[in-house]
Each structure stands twice: as structure tokens, then as C-alpha cells.
């Protein structure tokens, strides 16, 4: 009886400790901003935890990053060290390489897309096997729960729908969900009433995904000495608003109600930052993925970017950098005309992933300020031969490696139909031609 009682007490104490750590993370990440994001600008913020308890809990190990110490003086650098050096324009032994691999891992290891995204145990084993099959890239972009982190979070928070195909990547379905009046409603009522949608499978898989991501990032960094890709995801407010209004209507809003976009973006920024910080603390990797697409020059003009996107973006980045986060901009489509604005962002550790942007021009603009990553085209990876991929990778290395701050990669994601030999050729090219 006594043993049972003691066990219950220990269990309750552990539960309380976990809850306290969770609350401390929320507080540290921006409790007020999170409450206001969910429930509107005038929402009352409950006193979740006392300041003294908060201080004590922050000393707990879960709140800190588990980055391993670098080991200077060794002849060959680890993947982890290379990515760190590339971000800080430090000395490198060779060009780091990290094609963006996600759905391709499922195909390579014979998993269905469904299992890869939703069966975390299976995808963990598959992911670890794939690392060696691909030829050990320096940074690992896949892990169990990645689907939930990348697509699921957007689906959960912003009410987007996704389609899971058996043999094609997950895709977000876009349809109009908002009228113009909903911009104001967002600020009054928060995302809880204007965006949030309970996913059919409930919230538990999202919490489980974060737990698996944390474990797996630790595995990559500690056991395999490779850098984890990101531990946290956020989106430009501009992008979220465009999903809610639908693309064509939003393009008209840019001209007819620009002030509403500015005010709503401003409102979303603080809450999004707090959520990004919370994710980073939970997964243990303070590197945040910024999803950006609609704010590029493929869609809008530089003056529109300056007026409608830059102010909230600056606020978000300043807050994240001040809290010690690395920023990973995932810039699909063409961003060249917008990149001069990125120089206005505070000094920090950045990785800029490029797709259709002229990467040589990007280097000219961002050299010494932000590390660039890219951009062997997905079409070449899907349709080309290993020799053609190697040639393109070599050209990129020749032009972009001098001066450091460059990671060889694919432009956006490696497509599922890319032959494995093409991916291996890309990774191998960094070893073959990328020596400094």
C-alpha cells in the first residue's frame, strides 16, 4: 500500500515538474504574446507561474539547447562544425552540403508517405538508415514528426487543409476562408475564433511529434555529429493572410486595403515569434524556419514588400535574434529584388535557402551578412543524370565557395522522383570539388 502511495506521489511530482517546465517555457517565449495571438488584442493574460518559480525552473536542463561543444584543432571537421562555420563565415575544410530531403526519404527507404509522416517510430528508423544511404550530408533535414512541424503546424494554427498522396508530396489546398471584414475580427478575437481548427486526429500527435523531433535532433548532433536543420517553424504574417483570403483576392487586397494587411501582420508578429520560441525550446534547437513564398518578386513589387512585409518581418527577426535563435529563410521562387532589404535585418546567424533566385547575385548582396544555401534545380535532380548533377554542383562550388558562407544544396526540396544516384552525386560533389 505504502509503495503504491509513494509511486503515485512520485508520479504526481514528476507530472507537476513537467507542467512547471512547460509553463516556464511558455513564459520565457512570450506568454502574453501567445495569449493575445489566440484570444485577441484585449485578452487577459492569466498569471500562470510566479516569477521566483519561473527563475528556478529556467535553470532546469530542458530549457537549454543541447549543442555539443566544437572541437578545434582536429584535422577533419564534423558536419555540425561545418554548418556552424558556414553560418558565421568561419574557416572551413570543405563546402558543407545538405540537400533538402524529406519525402524522398520515404521513397528511398520504401516507406509509404503516410507511414513516413505519421508513424514516428518507423520514420525514425528509416531516417537513420537513409543518412548513410545518401552519403552523410552535413545537415539533416528530415526527422520523424517533420510533417507535423512543417505542414501540420500551419494546418493546426491557421486552418489550412492538406492532401496526402500515396506517391506525391503533401500539398496544402487553398480556398477562400476569409472575407475582408475578417482582418478586423482577427485582431478582436485572435486566431482561436478566426483560424484555429481542430485537426481530425486531435492535438496529441503534434505534442508527440515535438518529442520525437527533440530526441532525433539530439541523435543527429550527438551521435552522428551532423547539424539538425531546424527545431522551430514560423511563417510571414503576409503569407498566412494570403492563405486565408485566397491568392487572387489577397492580391487585390494589397491595393484596396493595404492598411488592414499592415495592422493584421503587426498583430500576428508577436504571437508567431512567441510560438516559434516555444517550439525551439521544446525541441532543443534554436533555429527557426521562416516559410516565405508569396512575398517574393514573383508575386509582388519591392515597394509593396517594403510597405507590407518588411516592418513585421523586422520585428519578428529582431526578437528571435535577440533570444539567440538562428534564422533559416526558406525562399522559394525569385527573391533577388527583395534581398537588399534583408541587409537591414540585425546581425545574427542566418541561412538563406534559395530556389529560383539568381544565387550568384544573392551572394553579391548578402556576402558577409547571411550564409546562402542552394540551389541545384529540382528539375535537373528529377530528370538529369548523375554527371549533369555533378557538373552543376561543381559550377556552384566554383562560383560561391570563395569567402565561405555557402552550403551546397538542392533548390527547395529534392523531388520524390529524383533518382537516388543524383542525390548521392550532389552530396559527393562537395567532397570531390569543395575542398578549401
Amino acid at each position, binding site marked *: 500500500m505504502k509503495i503504491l502511495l509513494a509511486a503515485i506521489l512520485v508520479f504526481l511530482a514528476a507530472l507537476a515538474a513537467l507542467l512547471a517546465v512547460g509553463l516556464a517555457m511558455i513564459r520565457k517565449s512570450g506568454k502574453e504574446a501567445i495569449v493575445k495571438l489566440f484570444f485577441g488584442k484585449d485578452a487577459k493574460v492569466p498569471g500562470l507561474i510566479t516569477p521566483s518559480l519561473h527563475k528556478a525552473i529556467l535553470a532546469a536542463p530542458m530549457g537549454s539547447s543541447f549543442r555539443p561543444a566544437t572541437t578545434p584543432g582536429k584535422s577533419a571537421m564534423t558536419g555540425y562544425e561545418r554548418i556552424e562555420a558556414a553560418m558565421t563565415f568561419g574557416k572551413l575544410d570543405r563546402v558543407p552540403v545538405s540537400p533538402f530531403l524529406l519525402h524522398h526519404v520515404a521513397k528511398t527507404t520504401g516507406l509509404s508517405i503516410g507511414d513516413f509522416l505519421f508513424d514516428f517510430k518507423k520514420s525514425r528508423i528509416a531516417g537513420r538508415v537513409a543518412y548513410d544511404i545518401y552519403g552523410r550530408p552535413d545537415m539533416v533535414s528530415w526527422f520523424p514528426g517533420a510533417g507535423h512541424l512543417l505542414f501540420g503546424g500551419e494546418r493546426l494554427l491557421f486552418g489550412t487543409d492538406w*492532401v496526402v*498522396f500515396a*506517391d*506525391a*508530396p503533401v*500539398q496544402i*489546398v*487553398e480556398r477562400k476562408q476569409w472575407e475582408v471584414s475578417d482582418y478586423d475580427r482577427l485582431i478582436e478575437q485572435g486566431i482561436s475564433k478566426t483560424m484555429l481548427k481542430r485537426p481530425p486526429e486531435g492535438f496529441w500527435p503534434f505534442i508527440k511529434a515535438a518529442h520525437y523531433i527533440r530526441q532525433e535532433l539530439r541523435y543527429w548532433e550527438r551521435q552522428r555529429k551532423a547539424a539538425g536543420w531546424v527545431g522551430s517553424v514560423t511563417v510571414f504574417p503576409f503569407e498566412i493572410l494570403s492563405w486565408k483570403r485566397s*491568392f*487572387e483576392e489577397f*492580391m*487585390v487586397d*494589397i*491595393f*484596396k486595403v493595404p492598411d488592414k494587411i499592415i495592422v493584421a501582420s503587426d498583430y500576428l508578429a508577436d504571437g508567431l515569434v512567441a510560438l516559434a520560441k516555444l517550439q525551439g525550446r521544446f525541441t532543443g534547437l534554436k533555429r527557426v524556419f521562416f516559410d516565405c513564398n508569396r512575398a517574393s*518578386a*514573383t*508575386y*509582388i*513589387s519591392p515597394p*509593396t514588400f517594403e510597405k507590407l512585409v518588411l516592418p513585421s518581418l523586422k520585428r519578428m527577426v529582431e526578437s528571435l535574434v535577440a533570444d539567440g535563435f538562428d534564422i533559416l529563410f526558406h525562399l*522559394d*521562387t525569385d527573391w533577388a529584388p527583395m534581398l537588399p532589404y534583408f541587409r537591414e535585418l540585425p546581425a545574427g546567424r542566418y541561412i538563406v535557402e534559395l*530556389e*529560383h533566385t539568381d544565387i550568384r547575385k544573392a551572394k553579391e548582396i548578402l556576402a558577409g551578412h547571411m550564409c546562402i544555401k542552394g540551389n541545384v*534545380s*529540382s*528539375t*535537373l*535532380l*528529377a*530528370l*538529369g543524370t548523375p554527371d549533369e548533377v555533378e557538373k552543376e554542383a561543381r559550377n556552384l562550388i566554383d562560383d560561391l565557395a570563395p569567402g565561405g558562407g555557402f552550403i551546397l544544396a538542392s533548390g527547395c526540396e529534392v*523531388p*520524390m*522522383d*529524383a533518382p537516388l544516384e543524383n542525390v548521392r552525386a550532389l552530396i559527393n560533389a562537395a567532397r570531390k570539388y569543395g575542398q578549401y
Partner: protein
Amino acid sequence: MSEELIKAIVELKEEEAIGLAEQALASGIEPSEILLSCQGGMTRVGELFEQKKYYLSELVYSGAIFKKISALLEEAMKNRDGGLQESKGAVVIGTVAGDVHDLGKNIVAMLLSGAGYEVFDLGVDAPPEKFIEKVKETDCRVLGVSALITSSFQGMKKIVELLGEAGLRQKVKVMIGGGVVDDMCLRFTGADMQSKNAYDAVLFCNEHCRA
């Protein structure tokens, strides 16, 4: 053609453009004449887009203004015989099976309608056979296939092959568009034109769509 109306559309002055169209209708100008001015405005917007002075957002907004004025003109034509304008030809477009992205396709459809083409949109995730059926049904000269993911290349290739099997390859030109298409993809699929740029679809149809 009304220079004022053209200018209002080019400068994206929605209320002014609609007001001018209404005034013109009230003063007895033929709806088809007003439509020509609107199309003149859209052509200039397209040129500004080609010159990189306008971006996609300007192109989409001008299309939305055009749509509103077209609706007004069609309303005015209701009690008359005949259509507003003779179509410049039929164009079938769609996003191939396994792909649900429709943003680029919708913009192309809007621009083609604005340029006077009759557009038959198959929507997203459309099987190759559906494209062929529609081509036969509409007797179109141009077929447009859109994709944002490379796994759609097989579907595009299949469509071109099926056109050949149906004996339509000589008659129907195939244009492919989307973020992932390039010359390599053009060779792989056997299509006639590729572009990431929506306005190129209008230029291609102007060249090949003479009914």
C-alpha cells in the same frame, strides 16, 4: 477605343474604370467597343509585366477589374442578339493528376479570358485522359498543362503521347507552365512551349490559336 478607360485600367483605378464603362454604356456606345478598350488596357498591363515594371499582383488586380466590367457588359447584352465578342479560340487547361496546385493555372485562365479566348478549365488533379476528351470536345488548338511538382512530368508526357495516339498532335500545340518547368522538362514531355511566366501563355495563344 477609349484612352481614358485604358488608362484607368492600366493605373489600377477600379472605381474610375467601372464608372467610365457605365458612362459609356449609358451614352449608347456598343458593349463590344467598350470591351475592346478593356482588352487594350489588359494588353498594356501585360507589356508592363513583361518589362518587369508590373508584378503579378498588378496583373491579378487588373484582371479583377476587367472581370467586373465584363460582367456589366454581358448584363447589357442580355436583351440583344449575339454574343459580346467572337471568341479568339478555345484553350483547354488544367493541373495534372497528383498535383493540386492551381494558382498559376488560374492566373493563366484569367489572362486568356481577358485576351478574348474561351477557356475550358479542367481544375486540379486531372487525369491525362480527361485532357484528351476535352480537346476533342472543344476542337481547341492550344492545350495548357500546369504543375508545381516534378512528379507531374510523367502526366504531362502521357498527355502529349495520348494526343499523338489520337492523331491530334499536329493540330494541337501543348504549352506547359509552373515553377518546375524548364527546357529539360520541355524535352522530356515533348510539349511545344514551357514557361514560368503566366503572360507567355497569352503570347503563345496569340501565335497558335487562330481559329
